[in-house]
């Protein structure tokens, strides 16, 4: 494939090609992208940490607070009904976006971290016992490691770790080698937040189910780049967070299969998750409200509904095509920088680039980039075991969003060259 054809090749070759959208037009939807930092145009490559928000999300949040805000599920008045309708409508929008069978499969949490902790604290506590095995991968974010370690302390479960290859790729045979008759859960990321590596979730789930294990997917970095169809994947749980999908912070989602959610005890106790409370006994709501104690993130969920509608209008396949095209351009341009090294080069990776520059500390590179207006993330990216595996202390990470264009990439490349010049 020639250099040029790689850049114009539609994403998803094999008949179902999808063209990227006009990214410059889309950028106008994001007010923050027109600002400057240190007198230079903002170039935002930190969407993997948290994405910027389109005008429709900002307007939706403002409208909720200005015209119908109230608590949900409990008020005997007009505003409460309006807020409840909007909140529950968001759940329906999210369910359809994920192709969940019903909105009853959608638990609204505060973050993907809470979604995973919820599963560990309820399903895990109820169904896992000493000696049972939970499989994770070397690529996990701390949020999908620590909850299982906490459960290990409490229940004596065993955590097994699927290795990744030197190029950051994930292979199903490595996963299968970890399976045993004691495997009860596979808790795994869909896309590495550091390497961009995609895990073949559908095939992995089929194999896990054949062995009687449940599958929980940390979709925080997956859903933003490729969307999700939970029925096609057949996963038991899928957690993600709103703020990385151009929605507000403070809201996360846990999808669970109906029978699995039904089998789980409540996570936290409080208002809204009960049917009846007496001092002798309390009965709990059915899912998903059983897992939503107290006042939920009302406006955040409504805002997330608006964000989902926004990306659906663009089309997740178009977003993937756009990001794929920009990623290919970036990989080509960055490779020309002497001493540049991409960490994680698995085939068909998502639009996340971790990199190092020979002789330069990642912190210094990121600091110089920052002064050029280029926002990246530096360090271990909440994935310390992966850094140990790759034999490095940290990286600079440029994570792409639907709004990054080739001019952004050019600024990144120029910024790295400037860093080399200033720091060498």
């Amino acid at each position, binding site marked *: 494939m020639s250099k040029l054809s790689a850049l114009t090749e539609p994403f998803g070759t094999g008949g179902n090609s999808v063209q990227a959208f006009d990214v410059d037009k889309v950028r106008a939807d994001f007010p923050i992208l027109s600002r400057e930092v240190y007198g230079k145009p903002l170039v935002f490559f930190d969407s993997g940490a948290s994405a910027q928000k389109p005008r429709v999300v900002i307007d939706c949040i403002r409208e909720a607070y200005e015209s119908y805000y109230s608590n949900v599920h409990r008020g005997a008045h007009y505003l409460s009904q309006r807020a409840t309708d909007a909140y529950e409508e968001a759940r329906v929008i999210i369910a359809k976006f994920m192709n969940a069978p019903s909105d009853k499969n959608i638990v609204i949490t505060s973050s993907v971290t809470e979604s995973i902790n919820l599963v560990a604290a309820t399903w895990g506590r109820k169904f896992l016992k000493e000696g049972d095995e939970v499989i994770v991968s070397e690529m996990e974010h701390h949020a999908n490691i620590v909850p299982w370690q906490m459960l290990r302390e409490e229940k004596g479960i065993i955590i097994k770790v699927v290795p990744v290859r030197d190029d950051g790729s994930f292979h199903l045979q490595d996963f299968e080698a970890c399976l045993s008759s004691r495997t009860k859960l596979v808790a795994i990321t869909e896309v590495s937040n550091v390497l961009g590596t995609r895990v073949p979730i559908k095939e992995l789930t089929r194999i896990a189910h054949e062995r009687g294990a449940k599958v929980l997917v940390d979709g925080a970095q997956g859903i933003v780049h490729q969307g999700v169809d939970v029925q096609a994947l057949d996963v038991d749980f899928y957690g993600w967070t709103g703020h990385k999908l151009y929605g507000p912070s403070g809201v996360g989602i846990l999808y669970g299969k109906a029978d699995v959610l039904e089998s789980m005890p409540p996570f936290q106790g409080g208002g809204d998750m009960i049917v009846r409370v007496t001092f002798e006994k309390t009965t709990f709501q059915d899912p998903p409200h059983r897992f939503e104690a107290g006042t939920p993130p009302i406006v955040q969920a409504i805002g997330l509904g608006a964000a989902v509608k926004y990306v659906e209008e663009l089309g997740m396949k178009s977003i993937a095509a756009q990001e794929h095209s920009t990623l290919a351009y970036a990989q080509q341009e960055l490779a020309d920088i002497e001493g540049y090294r991409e960490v994680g080069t698995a085939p068909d990776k998502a639009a996340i680039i971790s990199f190092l520059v020979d002789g330069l500390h990642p*912190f210094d590179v990121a600091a110089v980039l920052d002064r050029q207006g280029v926002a990246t993330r530096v360090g271990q990216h909440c994935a310390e075991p992966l850094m140990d595996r790759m034999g490095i202390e940290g990286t600079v990470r440029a994570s792409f969003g639907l709004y990054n264009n080739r001019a952004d990439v050019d600024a990144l490349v120029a910024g790295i060259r400037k860093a080399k010049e200033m720091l060498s």
Partner: protein
Amino acid sequence: MSRLLDLEKYDEFVGNLELIDDEDMRFEYIIDVGKKAGDADFPEVMKVDANLMHGCMSKVWIIDRVDDGRHYFSGFSDAIIVKGLVTMMTESFSGLTGDELDALNEDHVRKLNLGALTTQRQVGMLAMLAHLQKLGRRVTTAAAD
């Protein structure tokens, strides 16, 4: 504190930074301090966990030598910008007693970067100050014992 601190080196750094009226140039000045600091002044054998300052995005080691109750610091980082900052901090505040170190505050640190750093890195510099003060108190306490 009854008398004004004698902070000759600190005044020199602040004076230099004040002469530069461009934030980008101040940023480059910090990088230059880091480059000029070199590696020779900080012995390799001292780059051990006991001398490591925790909580930094890059590794920072700080040691001190006490002479007649006064602390003389040396610092090192594997990142040049942080090495510039740690050099400015250790050179500025060497030669002070534990009590004099305790009299230093946020304003002293703020003048050493003059907006050339993000808030996060200013917090890092404050953490360096707290570390120097801790070293000052540790030896002072040991001497009092």
